[in-house]
């Protein structure tokens, strides 16, 4: 017996995949990142189509200057928690900018998107409350519910009727109902009917918390996300987001229409007991908020939606089984994990990086080739992506033959 015995299953799964494709699919190393949509592995240039860099602001000149200036002014790290020495003018300014963008009175910034959900969910609920969580919620939401002492009940994905049924089942409660959904779901790329969820949640006297990690920046007239796009932002209790997608940095935030949210700063453990995000990360995100809420932001959104429509049509015409309507996330369902891994590897070896997404990280135990688009992708880039997926169809018999040989 050893400490490592419990990893036997996952090790076996990894070994099987490595035998097939001669690499660890969850350990890709890029030798260079040349820009928003191009990387390099060895001598091969790779089109990046799985980076969640939705607006392509990671190499935006103003965001880069803001980050560099912050280092010059305030150094490379804060070395302290927000409740100790880690609150700088950068953090306060970003919180104000995000609160203004959402037209909400309160905003708290966190060190990562993962910690945002961990902190807000566990901090806003206690043992008397009951959390209702969408069945397709991201791992950081699940972990947030685990860190909370509240009881957690899962409801069927994107079904306000099912939420209503499950909320109605609770006849007695000591605390509050806290409902968690996402805006754009990261794996299938489908979106939530927020207005209907608001109706159900508020009918039962609950609070609605939306993770707009993948929708902030790309949905809504000013880029606030799906709640803005659906015209219901002022009714939502809490909206969480991340800096590591449209905001082109690392960190996270949660805004609320409840000014009382501020007290949560004193109780959220993943906020209290970690160092605050660096001045450069925060300054890059602040510059990006300005870009998102501007005419330039509208241009970026227009481009990413044009590319999404183009790619969705191209892949659908090739006969790929796509998981949702066009959006910046487009996922093709594959028959199983092994075939999916072989196809993913073939794409990488032929100059295209997409995400290999497999259970239990995916809904319905699906194996997916997941693409996330960027406003920085050009029409030609998307034609190249479609071209790679067309070639992948052509080489299918050869891939299957290789698989059979390896399987003996």
């Amino acid at each position: 017996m050893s400490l490592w015995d419990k990893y036997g299953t996952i090790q076996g799964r990894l070994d099987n995949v490595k035998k097939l494709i001669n690499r660890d699919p969850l350990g890709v190393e890029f030798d260079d990142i040349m820009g928003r949509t191009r990387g390099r592995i060895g001598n091969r240039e790779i089109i990046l189509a799985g980076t969640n860099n939705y607006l392509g602001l990671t190499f935006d000149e103003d965001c880069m200057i803001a980050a560099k200036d912050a280092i010059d002014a305030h150094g490379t790290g804060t070395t302290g928690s927000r409740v100790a020495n880690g609150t700088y003018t950068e953090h306060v300014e970003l919180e104000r900018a995000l609160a203004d963008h959402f037209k909400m009175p309160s905003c708290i910034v966190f060190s990562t998107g993962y910690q945002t959900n961990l902190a807000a969910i566990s901090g806003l609920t206690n043992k008397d409350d009951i959390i209702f969580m969408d069945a397709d919620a991201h791992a950081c939401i699940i972990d947030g519910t685990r860190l909370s002492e509240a009881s957690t009940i899962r409801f069927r994905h994107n079904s306000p009727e099912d939420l209503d049924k499950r909320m109605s089942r609770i006849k007695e409660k000591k605390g509050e109902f806290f409902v968690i959904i996402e805006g754009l779901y990261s794996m299938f790329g489908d979106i939530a009917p927020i207005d209907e969820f608001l109706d159900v949640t508020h009918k039962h006297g609950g609070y609605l918390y939306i993770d707009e990690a993948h929708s902030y920046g790309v949905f809504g007239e000013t880029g606030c996300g799906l709640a803005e796009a659906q015209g219901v932002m002022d009714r939502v209790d809490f909206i969480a987001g991340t800096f590591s997608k449209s905001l082109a940095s690392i960190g996270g935030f949660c805004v609320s229409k409840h000014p009382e949210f501020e007290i949560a700063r004193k109780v959220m453990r993943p906020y209290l007991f970690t160092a605050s995000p660096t001045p450069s990360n925060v300054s890059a995100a602040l510059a990006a908020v300005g870009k998102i809420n501007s005419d330039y932001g509208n241009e970026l959104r227009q481009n990413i939606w044009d590319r999404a429509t183009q790619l969705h049509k191209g892949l659908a015409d090739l006969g790929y089984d796509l998981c949702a309507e066009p959006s910046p996330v487009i996922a093709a369902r594959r028959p199983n994990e092994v075939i999916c891994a072989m196809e993913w590897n073939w794409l990488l070896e032929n100059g295209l990086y997409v995400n290999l997404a497999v259970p239990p990280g995916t809904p319905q135990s699906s194996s997916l080739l997941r693409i996330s688009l960027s406003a920085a992708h050009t029409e030609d880039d998307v034609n190249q992506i479609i071209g790679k997926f067309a070639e992948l169809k052509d080489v299918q018999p050869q891939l299957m033959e290789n698989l059979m040989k390896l399987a003996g």
Partner: protein
Amino acid sequence: MPDHDEIFAKVCELLKPYNPENRPITMQSGIVSDLEVDSVAVFDLVMGLEDHYDVSIPMEMVSDIKTVGELCSAIKQLAEE
């Protein structure tokens, strides 16, 4: 009130789509360890049981359930409350 055998039969029925290799299911079968149902699928299975018996089985309770027998006992207890 449903008895243990009836609940066991229902659990077996709902487990079918997650058990493509048709492994034999007993009260002692580990849902994840023996039947190799992935952790997310276990929660999907639980939603079906919640609806059938009109009970709420919170996720923290599911995390403590390891075997088919434990799942049946939990449902029986909740249905009787």
